[in-house]
């Protein structure tokens, strides 16, 4: 080559040196970058572990003072310094249950409509609109619930329920009580509205993964749309549908602001769904700034720890169920 000839002998080794130095610098930079991204990855792990441990640490006073009774007693007495978490635990579970009873069938209906029934031009705009619901901040749900929905409940819905469902033999007591408007039922309905977009968008997405040939085979045998949905689509996507439901459940259990507005913050255990109650998240949000003793504060943080454990388990199940469909798909 002509350039080699033009260079003096020493320059060649100098440029080889430069290349080696460059390679060295690159290697060092590569190693540094690898450490950097690994550190950031580990930070995510540390954030979750840290959250769990810090709450366990913050709640240790409550756990050691009350022991197992923290979970089974209903006292919530700031003056007598006696705290039991049964009322908020019960409220959390009941409101989430009501929410799921409403949200699961509705979400299935929406997903079915958007994948099998609606004309194609309608599908994307309606799906986007439903997903818009998920974007509205929870405090807006809370304000709407308190100022608009609660009056409707107390003047129209609750008197109706008390009149027609109240006298029933077994379910009756659930629907007896004064028409306050705020309470477990209202909170459950607001939660249902909030989780519908999450569940329905998961269901819609997994329904779309069902191979067309499976559906078309069923149609060719003369199945109706409903039979295809119920006997082909749903069995194929079962685990992911359960995953989506658990994802919604995780949201419902941990939702704070919307519930705080409409639940009534009352530490009482009642059979009636129309009475005010409390949930774990609402108790923490309402009372954290009022906690004037160490044991009070510690009890609230212990509540947070319980909520964390429950939602962690629910969300982990959701994730595992959703992963199962992906794996099945990979095998096909």
């Amino acid at each position, binding site marked *: 080559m002509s350039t080699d000839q033009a260079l003096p002998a020493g320059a060649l080794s100098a440029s080889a040196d430069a290349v080696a130095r460059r390679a060295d610098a690159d290697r060092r*930079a590569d190693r540094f970058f690898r450490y950097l991204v690994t550190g950031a990855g580990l930070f*995510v792990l540390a954030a979750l572990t840290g959250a769990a441990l810090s709450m366990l640490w913050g709640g240790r006073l409550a756990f050691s003072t009350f022991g197992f009774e923290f979970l089974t007693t209903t006292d919530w007495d700031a003056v007598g310094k006696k705290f039991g978490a049964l009322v908020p635990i019960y409220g959390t579970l009941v409101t989430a249950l009501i929410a799921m009873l409403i949200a699961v*069938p509705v979400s299935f209906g929406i997903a079915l409509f958007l994948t099998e029934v609606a004309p194609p031009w309608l599908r994307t705009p309606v799906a986007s609109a*439903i997903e818009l619901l998920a974007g509205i*901040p929870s405090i807006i749900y809370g304000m*709407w619930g308190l100022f608009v929905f609660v009056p409707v409940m107390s003047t129209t819905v609750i008197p109706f329920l008390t009149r027609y469902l109240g006298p029933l033999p077994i379910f009756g007591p659930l629907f007896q009580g004064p028409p306050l408007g705020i309470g477990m039922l209202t909170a459950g309905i607001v939660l249902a509205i909030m989780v519908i977009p999450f569940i329905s968008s998961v269901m819609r997405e997994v329904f779309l993964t069902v191979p067309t040939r499976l559906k078309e085979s069923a149609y060719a045998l003369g199945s109706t749309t409903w039979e295809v*949905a119920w006997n082909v689509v749903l069995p194929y996507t079962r685990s992911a549908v359960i995953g989506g439901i658990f994802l919604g459940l995780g949201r419902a259990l941990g939702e704070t602001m919307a519930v705080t*507005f409409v639940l009534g913050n009352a530490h009482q255990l009642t059979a009636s769904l129309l009475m005010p109650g409390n949930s774990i998240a609402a108790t*923490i949000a309402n009372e954290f700034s009022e906690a004037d003793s160490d044991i009070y504060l510690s009890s609230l943080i212990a509540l947070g720890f319980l909520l964390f454990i429950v939602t962690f388990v629910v969300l982990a199940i959701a994730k595992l169920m959703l992963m199962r469909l992906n794996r099945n798909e990979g095998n096909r």
Partner: protein
Amino acid sequence: MSAISEKLYRRRRFKNGVALVLAGAATLFGLFWLVWILWTTLVNGIGALKPELFYQMTPPPGSDGGLANAFFGSMLMSLLAIVLGTPVGILAGTFLAEYARRSLLGESIRFVNDILLSAPSIVLGLFVYTLVVKQMGHFSGLAGAITLALIVLPVVVRTTDEMLKLVPSQMREAALSLGVPQWKVTVQVLYRSALPGIVTGVLLALARISGETAPLLFTALNNQFWSVDMSGPMASVPVVVFQYAMSPYDTWHSLAWAGAFMVTVFVLCTSLIARAIIARRKVAND
């Protein structure tokens, strides 16, 4: 025989019809709440809008004022949260997509990140309370920003991870075969290609934290006055909305609606822009 099958056929048709009508009704049910909630916010919010919102401070009980300090506090804390959360999120997402795609560590971090994504934000607030507020001895805007950064983090990790996975491996191989070190491939080739997706992730995270209320109650608390001091308590729009909506005063209610309206408009616009960016990218790729 044929009478029986005729009856069966009719029953199946009937069942199908009922189910499909119910599916349509469920969709209307979902849309009904959306329209109702947005309509309420719109009507009450626009009714409460006024110029004083932007230059007067949050008023004492019963009197009138604005939300200037709350807007500023929200802006400051959200900005700091994005600044803190985004780089860590992008790096962690890079780790998942480029360095640990199929390893056990990568899978467990991805798993934990997805849980963090849906975990109740109130839990993160309590975490930062014990970690920062208790150590500092008082509530602060900084603690609020850290909490929001923890909410930003999983969103950015997830989108970065997914966007980097979408980058064709030929690009990596082409760059590596030219002798470009891996970090340069990542920063100058992959990030450039995944940029619209990552920006979308950051915008979605911003939309998410602008409405966050619960975790700020234990970290930034609230402040009735103008404050630029991040080490002291700081007002934010959602917390002020919460406090004012729960109060018995009409003037406070109207301020709360104005705040709620502004937050909703901001959140919806941000997520629409985020969607538009992703949609444009899809078109460009086709």
